[in-house]
């Protein structure tokens, strides 16, 4: 099966696997043949006609997405004949296209714009008026449709048919009246709908929350891992820091999937995609002692005081609440501080119930933190058992727990109305995390930590893949990575 074929594309030798098309083999070899309808994960209906190429010996040009690679085939994709055929295909796509690039969010990353500039037939031969259709139709919570910009590639209908299997979209009408639209009575609300904005090669399907926020050419892209669940989808993080007045001042503009054959393929879910856009809200940047006397501290002073406080009473009564949001680097420093040095016994890191959610067959996992697996490798969940929030509450009420060290977790989500009373009973409450929450308000010490995009590290996903993420943004204020805070405390507590 793994037979390799050799053919020539524009004078360049290309290797193809048996059964591959010319377009697939060329793409794999890094040669770009223009195309819209073919998508690696969605098949090749061959309706856009953009990938048309000249084949030696064939009477007419052929579409390379439906042309099986054969040994010795000679293909030309940039010869005058091939270019003329591609140019005609593009002209047909532009017959009814409104060319409203100035207002279109896809502008700057649009297949139509790219090939139009590339092929360079800037004067329209059309004398007729353009057909008009629906503009800014909100299809669901996340996606906006502009029917005039659609080029009928059918990627979207194939996605809802083959990938999300939710079948909300269809193609209605014929000729100039043909349009993509919702199936009557449906809304585009499947948990993977955001991917449609990525696969639509033009600006027909765009993100509602990204709409008019910032132009794509102002964005910076960083490779990262989604921290939304234990799948650990590979993503690109698009940040907007060059023009701070754009994007309502928020630094994080959007998340986009990054192809990974073994983890997430081409897709990500909507929870992950849209779940982190308030990244900059409620952020902590100052090292604080809040009780008994409120005062801003230096890291040195804070570490000194916290280290002393942790040793003040017997360690049996100290509980530590962490989560799978810690990176592998954080987990190691965490273990060295709390298990090896302090020898604490009460840990809470299980996702119950505040960090658990829906799961499905495609990508989403029940545990809504990225790295429980990294903790497991160090014994958290195997050698060391996790408490539940309820049993911890019981222990606090019974006076068995005097101190609680909370790392980026909100007890209020589990305890609800009881939380304030429970947290105020404690002799020592330390909150360490990137965002303010009830525990941060009631804490004796509040230590600001960097959030995922402001540090680099590794997450181990549920399959055991260790995946690295890069730093995309600068830390705010005095925030330090969790591992650095743990390491500092450990150095002071070591006998």
């Amino acid at each position: 099966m793994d037979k390799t074929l050799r053919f020539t594309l524009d004078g360049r030798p290309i290797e193809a696997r048996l059964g591959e098309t010319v377009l697939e083999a060329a793409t794999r070899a890094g040669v770009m043949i223009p195309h819209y309808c073919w998508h690696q994960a969605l098949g090749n209906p061959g309706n856009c006609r953009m990938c048309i190429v000249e084949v030696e010996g064939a009477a007419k040009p052929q579409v390379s997405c439906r042309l099986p690679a054969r040994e010795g085939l000679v293909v030309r994709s940039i010869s005058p004949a091939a270019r003329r055929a591609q140019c005609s295909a593009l002209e047909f796509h532009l017959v009814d296209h409104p060319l409203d690039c100035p207002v279109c969010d896809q502008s700057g990353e649009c297949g139509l714009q790219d090939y139009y500039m590339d092929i360079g037939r800037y004067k329209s031969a059309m004398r007729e008026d353009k057909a008009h259709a629906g503009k800014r139709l909100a299809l669901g919570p996340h996606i906006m449709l502009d029917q005039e910009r659609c080029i009928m590639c059918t990627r979207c209908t194939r996605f809802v048919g083959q990938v999300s299997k939710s079948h909300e979209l269809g193609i209605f009408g014929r000729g100039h009246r043909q349009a993509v639209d919702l199936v009557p009575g449906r809304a585009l609300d499947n948990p993977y709908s955001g991917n449609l904005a990525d696969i639509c090669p033009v600006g027909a399907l765009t993100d509602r929350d990204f709409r008019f926020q910032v132009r794509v050419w102002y964005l910076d892209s960083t490779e990262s891992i989604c921290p939304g669940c234990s799948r650990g989808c590979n993503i690109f993080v698009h940040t907007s820091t060059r023009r701070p007045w754009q994007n309502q001042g928020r630094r994080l503009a959007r998340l986009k999937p990054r192809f990974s054959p073994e983890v997430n393929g081409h897709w990500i879910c909507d929870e992950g995609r849209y779940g982190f856009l308030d990244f900059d809200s409620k952020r902590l940047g100052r090292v604080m002692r809040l009780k008994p006397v409120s005062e801003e501290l230096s890291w040195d002073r804070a570490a000194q005081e916290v280290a002393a406080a942790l040793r003040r009473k017997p360690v049996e009564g100290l509980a530590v609440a962490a989560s799978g949001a810690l990176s592998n680097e954080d987990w190691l420093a965490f273990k060295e501080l709390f298990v090896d040095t302090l020898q604490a016994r009460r840990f809470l890191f299980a996702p119950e119930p505040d960090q658990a959610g829906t799961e499905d067959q495609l990508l989403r996992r029940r545990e809504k933190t990225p790295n429980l697996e990294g903790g497991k490798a160090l014994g958290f969940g195997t050698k060391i058992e996790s408490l539940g929030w309820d049993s911890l509450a019981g222990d606090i009420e019974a006076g068995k727990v005097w101190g609680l060290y909370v790392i980026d977790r909100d007890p209020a989500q589990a305890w609800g109305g009881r939380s304030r009373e429970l947290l105020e009973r404690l002799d020592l409450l330390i909150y360490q995390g990137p965002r303010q929450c009830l525990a941060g308000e009631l804490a004796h010490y509040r230590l600001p930590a960097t959030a995922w995009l402001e540090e680099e590290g590794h997450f181990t996903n549920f399959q055991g893949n260790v995946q690295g993420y890069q730093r995309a943004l600068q830390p705010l204020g005095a925030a330090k990575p969790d591992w650095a805070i743990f390491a500092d405390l450990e150095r002071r507590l070591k006998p």
Partner: protein
Amino acid sequence: MAMTVRPVSRPRRGLLEQSYLWEVARGLGVTFRHFFINLARHCLRLAGLRAEPGAVTIQYPDEPAVLGRRARTRHRLLRRPDGSPRCTACLLCETICPARCIRITAEESPDPAVEKRAKTFDIDLGMCVFCGHCVEACPVDAIHMDADQVELAAYSRGDMIWDMPALMRDTK
């Protein structure tokens, strides 16, 4: 590159040059030549004999400056026939501006045919280099540099920033 020394010979001045008298006379010669040519041109023009104008001194700022027809002056944001701004907030001018002095934020327009419009549009005229690139970049001809205003001084840097109402004030 290694540093090298290149000797430059001093100009040699004779007695005539060192006395300056000859040079002063030469300079005055130029001045008077222009004076009499201009005088002649003005007289001939008055007599209706010759069309070529003589040079004049403009009493700026007591008299208004005369600007060329294509002079790039303060920006103006143009309006649609219904009076709303023509700008669709495409941000191309902001992108091309070499001085980075344009700041635009966009919003949804209530008019579905317009779709996108500028929510805020500020130009910092204290930073603008009056290159005109913004006018060239605009795909909808929404920005011109023909307000014919060149006196833009203000008492603070903040006052040099013109916002959308100010940029649209004198456009019909």
